[in-house]
């Protein structure tokens, strides 16, 4: 495959480094700060890297007829998108790209989805396979390049959102999709109080609807599919045709996101979060709300009351609240027994915190 000749394979070199630390017997507890190239600090990855997977890059295998792509973790998503577009294909899930150098591995490790999540495939569901270095410095491979695979535990999906604490991701196989034939956006002037009625309506717009965003009194809808169907639906919907920038939304590059404090509130579908006007951006039919300059602790309490939770991107941190902390410890122990990979992140994100730390996250992504 001609794509395979490009790029740089650092897997053996990285694995040797991890193995060295695993076997090191010094007084000091060894650790590695793993990341790609530092573009996703706002999403939780470390800034000063001691294992920079951004160097490990290139397409390993791309088979358009299989709708699968296998690439090294450090490959920039922007490069992959160009390649896929040449074959009239795209990723099956939207992945935020804070910069043009943002990597595939970083997208997997942080696990954030874009505006299409509520209407289509999530990132975790588009991951078919993953090759990684475990905490013993072994290179191991799970999942595969086929659509269905239930041999052994699903350790590929488990990497999504684990922030590198369960392994250093070497390469990932993703499911692709045929490029959507047509996409258009319409907007409506809507009162916040009328949103829940709108979610009734958007439910009936499936499968053509692929994004909702409520910002500054306007509701933006993204419609995607075969051109005949998209145009037909647009004619029925009315509203104003708009050039709303959905990738700026996915990448958190809209002016709304330039704030001192930024939090993301996950809620059950159709829950209503009471927040001030101009302070919130509502996505996913109300299931994801971005709040700027909010009181994170109050938000966290309110989200918990509604059955949701808060992730802080910038500003005062809130206590982590994972399900089954015992299982988190067990998995960490199984995959990284010496706790080499991103230990600070493991404790702040994946362990139940005893009281609040009051530590501030300062994002480089602003």
């Amino acid at each position, binding site marked *: 495959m001609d794509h395979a000749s490009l790029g740089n394979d650092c897997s053996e070199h990285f694995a040797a480094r991890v193995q060295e630390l695993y076997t090191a017997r010094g007084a000091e507890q060894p650790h590695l700060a793993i990341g790609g190239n530092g573009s996703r600090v706002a999403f939780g990855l470390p800034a000063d890297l001691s294992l920079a997977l951004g160097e490990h890059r290139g397409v390993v295998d791309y088979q358009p007829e299989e709708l699968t792509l296998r690439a090294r973790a450090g490959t920039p998503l922007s490069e992959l998108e160009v390649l896929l577009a040449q074959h009239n294909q795209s990723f099956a899930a939207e992945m935020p790209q804070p910069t043009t150098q943002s990597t595939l591995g970083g997208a997997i490790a942080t696990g954030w989805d874009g505006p299409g999540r509520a209407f289509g495939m999530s990132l975790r569901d588009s991951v078919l396979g993953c090759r990684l270095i475990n905490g013993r410095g072994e290179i191991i491979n799970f999942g595969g390049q086929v659509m269905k695979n239930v041999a052994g535990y699903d350790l590929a999906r488990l990497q999504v959102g684990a922030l590198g604490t369960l392994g250093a991701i070497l390469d990932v196989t993703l499911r692709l999709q045929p490029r959507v034939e047509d996409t258009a956006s319409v907007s409506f002037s809507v009162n916040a109080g009328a949103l829940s009625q709108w979610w009734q309506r958007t439910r009936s717009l499936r499968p053509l609807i692929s994004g909702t965003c409520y910002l500054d009194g306007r509701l933006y809808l993204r419609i995607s599919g075969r051109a005949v169907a998209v145009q037909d639906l647009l004619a029925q919907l009315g509203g104003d045709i708009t050039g709303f920038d959905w990738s700026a939304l996915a990448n958190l590059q809209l002016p709304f996101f330039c704030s001192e404090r930024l939090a993301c509130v996950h809620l059950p579908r*159709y829950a209503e979060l009471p927040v001030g006007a101009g302070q919130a951006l509502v996505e996913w039919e109300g299931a994801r709300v971005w709040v700027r300059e909010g009181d994170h602790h109050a938000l966290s309490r309110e989200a918990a009351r509604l059955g949701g939770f808060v992730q802080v991107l910038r500003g005062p941190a809130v206590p982590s609240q994972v399900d089954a902390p015992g299982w988190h410890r067990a998995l960490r122990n199984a995959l990284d027994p010496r706790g080499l990979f991103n230990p600070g992140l493991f404790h702040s994100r994946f362990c139940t915190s005893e009281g609040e730390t009051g530590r501030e996250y300062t994002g480089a992504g602003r």
Partner: protein
Amino acid sequence: MVKREDTAPFECDALPVYCEAPLAVALAHSEQDVVAAVRLCHEFGVPLVSRGAGTGLSAGAKPIARGLLLVTAPMNRILDLDPQAMTARVQPGVINQQISTAAAPHGLYYAPDPSSQIACSIGGNVAENAGGVHCLKYGVTVQNVLSVRLVSATADNIGEVLTLGGDCLSQPGYDLLALVHGSEGGLGVITEVTVKLTPVPEQTRTLMADFDCVRTAADAVSAIVRAGVIPAALEMMDKLAISATEAFCHAGYNLEAAAIVLIDLDGHPLEVQAELAVVEQVLSESGAAQVRRAADELQRARWWKGRKSAFPAIGRLSPDYYCIDGTVPRHRIGEVLEATARFAEKYSLRVANVFHAGDGNLHPIIMFDGIEPDALERTEKLAADILEYCIAVGGTITGEHGVGLEKINQMAVQFSDAELEQFRAIKRNLDPFELLNPDKQIPTLARCQEYRALRQSGG
């Protein structure tokens, strides 16, 4: 239940070549029953195998002679169905099809539809990460479950009830829900499942294409996806499967065809119309001898009834049959089918093929007569050859049936020692007392070495 006449019906799942009488069978009626069973088993050092309806095809629910078999089938209530949020909260013994039936008045259904959907229970679907005919477009079980409750057996709290996942579209922490799907009852006992419901598509149209050659049909499957269409279902049957099902339920298949391909296209009517045109053109360019559109709902239902009754239909042709479950890249399907035919000839066995072609998920059905002294042995060798060929072309030994006991040897072929040890480390950390369905799914190191040596020596 401890008496032999009571426990006898539970000695195997739907793969009856593996069979064993358990120490006792317990029927769970509530989550408390499950917690009590797990704690008792821990107290007395007795392993526990959990199962639902027992429709599994990999002997994953085969009891252990020194163990308890815990049956969650009596936990069969739909606890809540929320049409607004498009979710249903159900007990593990609820039958797959029941959820769609209950959701139908709201224009919703539960998408994963294994062929056993009228009998299989949702707890088992999660444990095996079950697939089905429509998962090419709508995903397998893991894509359609929001949360589970399960009884855990970790060292610090045996019998703890955990909720993994939730009502949000993502969850804080690790994706434990993904880990539990396909864990084959080895990490916990599922006591409740919240599933995602999907709006019933506005329109569904079905196409059937006949081919004179299996290879041509297989290549047409790849061409459809390459043309930018993801059908809701894309299934294939070979000549033996066609004749068996046609005799069984008169579906209306062409008995002269070497293979047929059945395709569902669904969604917005204008999209369906556009995609019908694309697919019909691709099929005729790919060498289909005939392409038909189902005229009405009745014909559509008949065509699909044939596909879904293929297993019992083939069962009528042979005293015993054995279904396997490898997945390969789509463009290798033709090659794998040809290799399967060669292997079958070597062992003097007949194989029918009826499978999820769109996913590359093959289901060769080996027909044999268990009365012949070496028939089962030849069947198992043939199955091993086919599965190992699947691995060789970049596939996997199981797409949706699970490893269980049946494919435990092939795990040693698909995975390296470090990978298998990683699986074992996870199992050890989450089930330190080896209480839950031990000795299945993940082979021991000794077993792997033994099997690899055996295969190398040509055994």
